[in-house]
């Protein structure tokens, strides 16, 4: 724009030109963004409002929705033991499996960040589980966790140990899911590896000059420099884990005794097997609010433990 003004000598046509070109830029911009704007209205904002409305109704999809106020929520929190169990197991799964995955991913990334051979090979192998993800993993592990002929119990049996019923024991099924999730810990490893390599080497050199040991280097440089990345992945991981559906749906159908009925599976059952659309919408909003509160809480608390490079400059 400024180039144009230099060229055209007089100021009057310039003003008109720059005004109309700015308008045309704005118009084109909105036009080009319109697929997303439309999509946002049709597929996100509209449905959100409707599901909020539905959460206050009783609706079987075939008759008219009936307004029942807060009764869905009352039912869920005060009388629906299955829902409370589902809230509990989903929370345990997310808050145990994700920190474990993050820790394992960090350890792997630190090991791979040395000058080692076969770096590409290890990186590929560790990333592989998240490439196939979801249903394929569920199918694989349903077979591996089998009580009678599953791989784990067959191996245990060769040592004369009778393996437990990994997916059939209400007390064990969550442990099995968490163990399985560890198998996919390599995905975050790639991110941490990238972040580790992004730490300026001057920091370590300065620490060497000051005579810092390995542990001090790790605790005083590596950990603080990594916290923003760890923090981000932890939140995203927990949000994803709270929405887990395929694993319990394929591996246990939520059993035994609902001990692996995760929230989204319970929502799916209510909506698409029992056609309780209002009730399911209430569950959806509880999941949504749960995730929102969690996200806001973690972001608020982050200043206490996340180190951003900018904050140092501020001091």
């Amino acid at each position: 724009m400024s180039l144009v003004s230099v060229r055209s000598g007089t100021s009057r046509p310039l003003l008109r030109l720059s005004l109309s070109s700015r308008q045309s830029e704005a118009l084109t911009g909105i036009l080009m963004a319109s697929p997303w704007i439309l999509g946002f209205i049709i597929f996100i904002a509209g449905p959100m409002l409707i599901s909020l409305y539905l959460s206050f109704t009783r609706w079987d999809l075939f008759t008219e929705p009936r307004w029942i106020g807060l009764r869905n929520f009352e039912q869920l929190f005060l009388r629906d033991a299955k829902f409370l169990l589902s809230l509990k197991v989903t929370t345990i799964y997310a808050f145990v499996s994700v920190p474990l995955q993050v820790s394992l991913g960090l350890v792997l990334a630190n090991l791979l960040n040395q000058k080692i051979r076969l770096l590409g090979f290890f990186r590929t192998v560790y990333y592989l589980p998240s490439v196939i993800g979801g249903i394929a993993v569920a199918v694989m592990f349903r077979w591996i966790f089998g009580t009678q002929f599953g791989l784990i119990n067959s191996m245990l049996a060769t040592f004369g140990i009778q393996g437990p019923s990994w997916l059939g024991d209400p007390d064990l099924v969550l442990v099995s899911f968490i163990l399985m999730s560890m198998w996919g810990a390599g995905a975050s490893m790639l991110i941490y590896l990238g972040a580790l390599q992004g730490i300026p080497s001057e920091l370590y050199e300065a620490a060497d000059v000051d005579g810092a040991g390995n542990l001090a280097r790790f605790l005083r440089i590596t950990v603080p420099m990594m916290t923003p990345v760890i923090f981000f992945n932890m939140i995203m991981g927990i949000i994803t884990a709270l929405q887990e559906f395929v694993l319990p749906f394929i591996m246990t159908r939520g059993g035994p005794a609902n001990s692996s009925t995760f929230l989204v599976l319970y929502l799916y059952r209510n909506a698409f097997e029992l056609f309780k659309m209002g009730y399911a919408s209430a569950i959806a909003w509880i999941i949504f609010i749960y995730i929102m509160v969690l996200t806001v809480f973690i972001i608020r608390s982050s200043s206490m433990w996340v180190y951003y490079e900018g904050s140092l400059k501020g001091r």
Partner: protein
Amino acid sequence: MAERAARLPAQGSDTQWSEQAKRLSIYVVLLAGAVIVFIPFAWTLSTALKAPDRLAEFPPRWIPDPIVWDNFPEAVTIKPFGRWFLNTLFVVGVATTGTIMSASLVAYSFARLRWPGRNLLFLVLLATMMLPDQVTLIPTFVLFRHLGWVNTYLPLIAPPFFARNAFFVFLLRQFFMTIPLDLDDAARMDGASYFQIYLRIILPMSKPALAVAAIMFSQFKWKEFLAPLIYLNKQEMFTVSLGLRTFIGESWGTEWHLMMAANIIFMIPLILIFFFAQKYFIQGVVITGVKG
């Protein structure tokens, strides 16, 4: 400093030794991890090649005897697997095209054009990335059902044309921001329209980022499960991911050898694309993950 320098030679051989031991232990740990990652794959392949009466063999055998290659043709013929494969290719192809077209156009607008409300809407777009899908699931289902789209592929392929997956807008925008704005200005001087700049300059310069987006999205779409489960009821309409479920037996038990063969066929495209496009995966992680 002098003190430190004097200390070093004396420690030399000692540190070298512990250095060697440390390296060795790192390799041992990494290799053990790699083996653990490999075992489920190996067991899946092994099962897929077993005769049905050898599935319960004890102790478990890694290399089946006899090796039954026929499990693969059997798995794809007892179910309409070929049809499922084509269905999935169609859905993935169209949806990926839609996502790349819409996401790149929207990303261009957010990255390089100035319009009122842009920054606010971009924040909204970022927020939608955190939004759990469940909260829109039921009304969206009701809408598509009302339109008569149940048992068609439209619920799976129409939303991508509206950049429904904001993550890809974000990814492409991050990349477009790195292209010098001078290029746009020069093209404007030559009388190019914004759309021409997008088509002739931005897109050709962003091939790597577009490849990252296309690969990430198509892999996601190939694995997608909940949407096909809700919208597709007729078996011949299934995608492969949904079809896999039909191998889980209801009354007579699961035919594990066939199910594992089917699972391998399902995984092959994912793994092949991953191997051939590894650098794009790593770039995808770098563009988005670290930016967090």
